[in-house]
């Protein structure tokens, strides 16, 4: 019997998710001997035509990382969907939109203008922006078109499973491959990590008092490092209460509060709104002015609460608005 075929593809991402596969280290060997990797542009030389010639459903599983923000990505995601039995959203950007999804706070034109005209390291006196079609020395060049909205993978194609994380811990990828190979996959649509919130397994949770009352939101440099203490108790915003567990507390162990890359738990619709909700109730004041001051001590609230999940949130950002 021939080995099951597996494909990996990247869209709008930083490359960290690809790295998370490489980080399997020797654990990748049982995977590569059990499957045929038939497409992995970042690591091996394949062409899109290699995919086009396949039968529908011929690929057993495809891992796609990165958000969808260009027509080429959308096209290939749809092609891979057709050719694959399983599509797995790999990492925060495919799952939730990720950091690139923060672009949904801005209009497409502003994003392009900033990147190609405004940043101090760019010299672009003619104000040239990337074009889909350009003539150069009598030849026509083509670039993929940038969408006006960053989308999650499941806003473009049907997704069977999600591996969360920015990037996902190699352990989760290993488990996912094992589940595919042993045919032990949970119901479709499952996020292949824990069900509960990060606080549930956090090594600092014992120090979390029953009631936390904050008169200021602090930043990391304002407190002394105490590896035992819950960040929230210290007044540092931690998104552990609204974030899915399963990351192995990589950030917490490095003395960095949770920023939510695993996305919300199944019960939460909007990670930002939920985070706002519990943080607001920790504010220790009933005086409107004082509350305002405390709220103002949070820099870039929307960017913080929706750092990884803006594109998958209820409103999806400041996009396609008719009126204010």
């Amino acid at each position: 019997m021939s080995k099951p075929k597996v494909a990996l593809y990247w869209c709008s991402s930083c490359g960290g998710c690809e790295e998370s596969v490489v980080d399997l280290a020797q654990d990748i060997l049982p995977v590569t001997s059990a499957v045929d990797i038939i497409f992995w542009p970042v690591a091996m030389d394949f062409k899109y035509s290699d995919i086009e010639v396949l039968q529908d459903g011929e690929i057993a599983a495809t891992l796609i990382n990165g958000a969808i923000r260009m027509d080429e990505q959308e096209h290939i995601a749809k092609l891979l969907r057709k050719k694959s039995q399983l599509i797995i959203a790999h990492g925060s950007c495919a799952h939730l939109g990720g950091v690139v999804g923060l672009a949904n706070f801005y209009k497409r034109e502003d994003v392009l203008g900033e990147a190609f005209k405004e940043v101090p390291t760019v010299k672009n006196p003619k104000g040239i922006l990337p074009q889909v079609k350009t003539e150069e020395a009598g030849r026509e060049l083509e670039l993929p078109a940038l969408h006006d909205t960053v989308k999650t993978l499941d806003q473009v194609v049907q997704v069977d499973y999600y591996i969360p994380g920015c990037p996902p811990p190699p352990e989760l990828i290993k488990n996912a491959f094992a589940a595919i190979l042993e045919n032990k996959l949970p119901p479709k649509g499952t996020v292949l990590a824990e069900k509960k919130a990060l606080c549930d397994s956090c090594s600092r949770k014992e120090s979390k008092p029953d009631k936390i009352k904050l008169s200021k939101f602090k930043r990391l440099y304002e407190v002394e490092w105490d590896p035992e203490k819950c960040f929230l108790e210290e007044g540092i915003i931690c998104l552990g209460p609204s974030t899915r567990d399963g990351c192995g507390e990589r950030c917490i162990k490095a003395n960095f509060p949770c920023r939510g890359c695993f996305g919300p738990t199944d019960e939460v619709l909007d990670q930002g709104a939920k985070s706002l909700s519990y943080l607001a109730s920790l504010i220790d004041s009933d005086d409107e002015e004082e509350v305002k001051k405390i709220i103002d001590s949070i820099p870039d609230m929307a960017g913080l609460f929706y750092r990884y999940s803006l594109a998958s949130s209820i409103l999806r950002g400041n996009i396609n608005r008719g009126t204010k």
Partner: protein
Amino acid sequence: MSSSSRFEPKIVGFICKWCTSAAADLAGVSRLKYQPNVVSLRVMCSSRVDPEHILQAFKGGADGVLVGGCHPGDCHYQVGNYQTRKRIMMLLEILKDMGISPTRLRLEWISASEGAKFQDTMNEFINTIRELGPLGLKVK
């Protein structure tokens, strides 16, 4: 809708059982009329309103959302409305970044005896939103 006809905003009201909803009842039995643009949902306390509910209302087509609770100090659950106020204050900041005018979300304290205030507040809010125009969100 023909272009000459007036824009009729859709408003969602989350009103607490003990105060604002009782005020709505009082307005009703007192035959105080207000414009029929509001769908009111009674909740046990204004603090039951999760920011997610408000965002869902906007996404679902609401042009404005009004949260009504008991006056400060009067919440049936003692501090619920203080929690509500903090959440709404934060949510208003988020709405700005989402490109939604903060005018579209209003928090009001209306006690059980303030039927007339309920009437006035609703009329005034509806008029404000009518002037602002439709929210026109295009998220599916």
